[in-house]
Structure formats: C-alpha cells, structure tokens
C-alpha cells in the first residue's frame, strides 16, 4: 500500500503540469478545475493496481485523464450544472514571478486555450495530446484513432488555433 501510494504520488508529481493543462482545456471555470483535477487523480489512484505496463505510463495516464474529464462533464450535465464548492483544503500556487512576461504570454495562451475549450471533444483530445508532445503513434495508442485520421484532424486544428492567435495579435 505504501509503495502504491509512493508510486501514485510520483506519477502525480511528474505529470502535474500536464494534467493541469489538460484540466484547463476542459474546464473554463477556474472554480471547477480543482474538482476535475481531483477526479482525475482519483481515477489514476483507482486504476493503478490494474496497470500492468502493457502501454507506457504516459499513454495510460492520458487515457484515464481524458476519459475522466469527458465523463465528469457528462455527469455534471446530468446534475443540472450547478457550481460545485471548491475544497478549501488543497492549496494551489502560481510559480511565475515576471509579471510582464506573464501578461504577454498569458494573453496569447488564453486566446489559444479559449479556442481549444470550444473545440469538439475529439479534436480537443487530439490537439492536447499533440501539444503535450506525444507522437502520432502514441496519440493513436491513447485515442484509438488511426494515424491518418489524427494527421488530418491535427492539420485543421493547428490552422484554426494559429489563426486565432494571429487575430488576437492583430487586435492588440
């Protein structure tokens, strides 16, 4: 049990930034992100005893995270989208210290994030996996779609996101 817990915390520690980015791509409401993160962490914790190393840890984790995110959205839709209270107990900490850089990058990133949040779920999953640096083969392993389907979707989504960022820069 102890080693299982250490393993779990190791995975969470290692993938925490990626998981937060994934959560942000699904959840526009900052108050609900914490809850979604915890749902994903719970899914990882419960699935860990079944993990036999048939796939890489990374692809296994992304499958769980995306699937839990989708089913959490579905459950919320059924529960009549009311605001969930954010637990006070878990502390979140921002790590950047240069405010100018934060502002410039943040605006462009926010524009991209908003565009990603509006994508259809399948497109969102594929682009998030791609932006996290997974190869086409790994994305195929996670999503179950063929490499050619992934490539054609990615090309279209990339164009759309690039366009959104350019427009945001022009507006400035």
């Amino acid at each position: 049990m102890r080693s299982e817990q250490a393993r779990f915390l190791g995975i969470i520690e290692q993938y925490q930034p990626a998981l937060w980015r994934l959560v942000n791509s699904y959840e526009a409401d900052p108050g609900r992100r914490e809850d979604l993160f915890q749902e994903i962490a719970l899914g990882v914790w419960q699935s860990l005893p079944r993990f036999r190393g048939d796939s890489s840890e990374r692809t296994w984790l992304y499958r769980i995270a995306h699937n839990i995110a989708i089913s959490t959205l579905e459950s919320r839709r059924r529960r009549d989208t009311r605001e969930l209270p954010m637990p006070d107990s878990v502390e979140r900490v921002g790590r950047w210290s240069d405010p100018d850089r934060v502002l410039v990058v943040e605006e462009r990133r926010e524009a991209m994030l908003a565009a990603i949040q509006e994508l259809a779920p399948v497109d969102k999953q594929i682009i998030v996996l791609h932006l996290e640096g997974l190869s086409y083969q790994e994305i195929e392993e996670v999503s179950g779609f063929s490499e050619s389907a992934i490539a054609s979707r990615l090309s279209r989504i990339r164009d759309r996101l690039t366009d959104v960022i350019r427009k945001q820069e022009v507006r400035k």
Partner: protein
Amino acid sequence: MTPTDELRQLWQSDINEAIDQRELMRELERRTRNFDRMNRRRDFRDIVAMLVVAVVYFWFAVRAGTTFERVADLWLVVFCGWFIFYLRRYAKLSRKPVPEQTLDVYRQALVERYDGQIRLAKSVKYWFILPMWLGQMLYDIAYWVNGGKNIKFVMVTIFVTAVNALVWWLNEGPAVRYLKRKRRELAVLVGEEGVAK
C-alpha cells in the same frame, strides 16, 4: 519556428500549479471511503428489502387458506427475488466503464450505457410486468375460485391490467423517448458521431 512549435511552446508556458500531495491523498481517501460506504448501504438496502418482502409473502403462503392462494404468494416471493436480482445484475453491467480504455472505446461505452437503459425499459414487459401481472391475477383468480363475487373479480382484473398497462406504456413511451434524447445529447457532448477511424 513551425506553427506546431509555436503552439506547443505557448501551450507549455501555462503557469504550473502545485497541489499539496498530503491534502490530495486525504481528499482521495475521503472520496474512496464515501464511495465504498455508498455501495455498502445500497447493497444492505437491497438485501433487506428482498428479505422483508420474501418473508412477508412466505408468511402469507404459510397462512393461506387454499392451495391457489399459496401458489400466488409463493409466485410473488419468487418474483420479488427475481426483480431485485435482475436490477442488481443490471446495475453491475451499467457501471461506469474503466477509464484506462482508449478514448474512442470509452466514448462508445458511455453511450452504450444509455443503450442498456433503453433496452431495460423496452424489455420491462418481460422481466417486470408479465410476472407481476401473473402473480396479481393468481391472487384474483384464487379469490374467485373460493367463491368471490363475479363483479369484484372483473373489477380487480380490469384495475390490475390497467395499472400494469400504464407502467408498460410509461416505460416504452415517455421513458424510452427521454433516454433516447439523453443519449443523443451525450453523443454530441462526447463527439461520438462522425469520427473517422
């Protein structure tokens, strides 16, 4: 810099947020405990309900004045057991799919849970209404065979049949339509349709 590099750089520039691991573990253990407690309570409730109903009808069967009444009581004992067994078996089949499947298989599994509920509602006539109606009718016939009034027998037959017909209609009509609408909404939400493989 390619568009991909640019997007990836921007994406990964997200402000990293840290979470207190000890608090996270406490929260997960709390959620797991609540989930286990909820399952235990549901199991306990089902089993107690099954036992109470079975004992009551069994007691009626022991005290029954005629063989016909005894058969009707025992029929309802068996039916209640069957009903709870069927619902529990179905509940196991309709649990959320395990999340480590590929995304497309998981999406299909989510949608198929609605298909299962639709099948359950459509087949209610076989696993609920027919055995329930037969048990109630056995009671009614037992009353008539024992010298009950014809008019009361007919009235009870009509009432029992009408109530069961209403339950049948509610399941196959409004319930199935509602589930189909929910299924369509889910399919759109999870992007189940039109995914090129």
